[in-house]
């Protein structure tokens, strides 16, 4: 069974429209949920229409591959914990890049000409060939790079991997990939060249991602997301498929802008993320010495401090999410609210592993989003806050970012929790944060350390509050 091309063109048009409208709806909290459903319908329509294209072969094979891919991804996406969302986005994004690269590869392989005669390819225009090669290059980098990002966030790989002369090696591999790509694009398509091109492109994605530290990973994932969008658009041109061009290009542009916004929120430039070695400065330059000592506090005392406070601001970090403490923390906050304490949650733009990640995790626990306040809005309120509770956050509340120019996080905007009358820091142990930087806040006079796993500490605070009420 097949549909006429005109019907299919209409389906693609509607799909492209639904993608754009869906993305537009997703950019406002009130309509976001409908947005993904709209886009989902667009996707379904485009896939069904493609299956019914007039000159399609291997339909059984196509349906089998779609079913396997959809089932595996659906199953994994359903059961993964919310904390693991960033690496899942990386994984699915990498798959998209890989698919784009596969399209490029199949086009190239179909146009392999004998090595001897260097005739230009008949069926593909020079522009289509060039864009096809470029899309394959970008898609391959996105595929292997995203896979490394996934492995890192999943904890399968050491956080950073550096060796001397790394930049030079990376540059050489990139040059090899681009060089082979140019040869292919000029019409000299042979199998060894195609294979060499893909190996170089995949290798570059791996090498480029390995030295990047975990803290910068969200920016990198977002960048690869934009890459995949571009690759899809270019391969769409090769296949003369407008839906792919439009959807890919929209994502390419949106993803680039998102990447810039994220990098800005972390006070880092994209170039700095990709080529600067984060953390190296901390070990090299002598960081300012931090005086004083960490002063511990018991859960009972902490609970009393907060129970009789007027304003409490809770600053959650990724550590809270790892400990799965968000539900207990919200239960605790509700008890405080019931006592008449004004409770707010303060979120740093890069709290969690991605901007907005912490909002999602708190929302999962049932925290209404009007209690969640952004950094710019909460910072002026810290001086009138009685108790600021830092749970599993570290670098985003480190005053060193303001005071020590030699620190790698110097200049990063932070939550000014140190301005609060009292600060309680819930922390597993005395170690440093994700960026490996000593935190001056923990040694401040008004800071008290409440050691323990986030979940059990929150549980203790809840039971202490309940005994106060009884």
């Amino acid at each position, binding site marked *: 069974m097949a549909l006429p091309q005109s019907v299919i063109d209409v389906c693609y048009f509607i*799909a492209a429209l639904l993608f*754009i409208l*869906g*993305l537009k709806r997703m*950019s406002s*909290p009130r309509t*976001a949920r409908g*947005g*993904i459903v709209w*886009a989902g319908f667009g*996707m379904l329509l485009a*896939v069904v229409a*493609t299956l019914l*294209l007039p000159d*399609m*072969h*291997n339909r059984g*094979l196509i349906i089998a*591959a779609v*079913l396997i*891919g*959809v089932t595996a*991804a659906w199953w994994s*996406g359903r059961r993964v914990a919310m904390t693991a*969302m960033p690496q899942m*986005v990386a994984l*699915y*994004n990498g*798959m*998209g890049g*890989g698919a*784009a690269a*596969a*399209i490029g590869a*199949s086009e190239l*392989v179909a146009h392999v000409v004998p090595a001897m005669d260097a005739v230009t390819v008949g069926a593909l225009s020079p522009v289509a060939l060039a864009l096809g090669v470029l899309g394959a290059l970008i898609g391959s980098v996105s595929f292997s790079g995203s896979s490394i990002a996934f492995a890192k966030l999943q904890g399968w790989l050491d956080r950073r991997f550096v060796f001397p002369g790394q930049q030079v090696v990376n540059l050489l591999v990139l040059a090899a990939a681009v060089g082979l790509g140019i040869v292919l694009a000029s019409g000299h398509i042979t199998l060894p060249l195609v294979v060499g091109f893909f190996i170089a492109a995949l290798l570059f994605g791996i090498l480029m991602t390995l030295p990047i530290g975990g803290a910068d990973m969200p920016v990198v994932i977002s960048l690869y997301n934009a890459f*995949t*969008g571009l690759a899809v658009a270019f*391969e*769409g041109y090769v*296949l*003369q498929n407008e839906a792919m061009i*439009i959807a*890919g290009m*929209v*994502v390419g*542009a*949106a*993803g680039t*802008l*998102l990447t810039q916004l994220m990098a800005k929120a972390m006070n880092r430039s994209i170039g700095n993320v990709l080529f600067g070695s984060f953390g190296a400065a901390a070990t090299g330059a002598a960081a300012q010495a931090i005086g004083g000592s960490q002063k511990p506090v018991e859960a009972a005392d902490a609970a009393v401090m907060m129970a009789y406070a007027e304003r409490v601001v809770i600053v959650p970090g990724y550590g809270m999410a790892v400990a799965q403490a968000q539900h207990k923390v919200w239960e605790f906050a509700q008890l405080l609210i019931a006592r008449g304490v004004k409770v707010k949650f303060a979120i740093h733009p890069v709290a*969690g592993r*991605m901007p*907005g990640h912490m909002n*999602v995790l708190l*929302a*999962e626990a049932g925290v209404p*989003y*009007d*209690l969640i306040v952004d950094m710019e809005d909460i910072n002026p309120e810290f001086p009138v806050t009685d108790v600021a509770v830092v749970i599993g956050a570290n670098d985003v509340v480190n005053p060193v970012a303001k005071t020590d120019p030699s620190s790698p996080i110097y200049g990063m905007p932070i939550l000014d929790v140190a301005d609060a009358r009292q600060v309680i820091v819930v922390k597993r142990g005395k170690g440093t944060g994700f960026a490996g930087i000593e935190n001056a806040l923990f040694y401040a006079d008004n800071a008290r350390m409440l050691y323990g796993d986030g979940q059990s500490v929150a549980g203790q605070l809840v039971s202490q509050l309940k005994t106060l009420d009884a």
Partner: protein
Amino acid sequence: MLDGFLALYIFMLAAFTGYEIIARVPVILHTPLMSGSNFIHGIVLVGAMIALGHAHTPFELAIGFIGVLLGAGNAAGGYVVTERMLEMFKSSKPGQGGKESK
């Protein structure tokens, strides 16, 4: 069919569209949006299906099959993850939540 310049116009206008849609987005939605745009480039599945649908040699079939597999994973996984994230947007004040607004 698409000649060079027509395609160039599509590229340009689509890029502006993407830029404008994202330009004024609250931080709270950055992660869901990244995930949502990740889903939308799952349209690559369509291209992979076309590639597999025109494959002849076993090698081409294998590449096409892998492409469709990966593309389907991108589309389905992107959808599930985005939907799960957006499911959680609720407000304590009635009338503002995601459910009430269609």
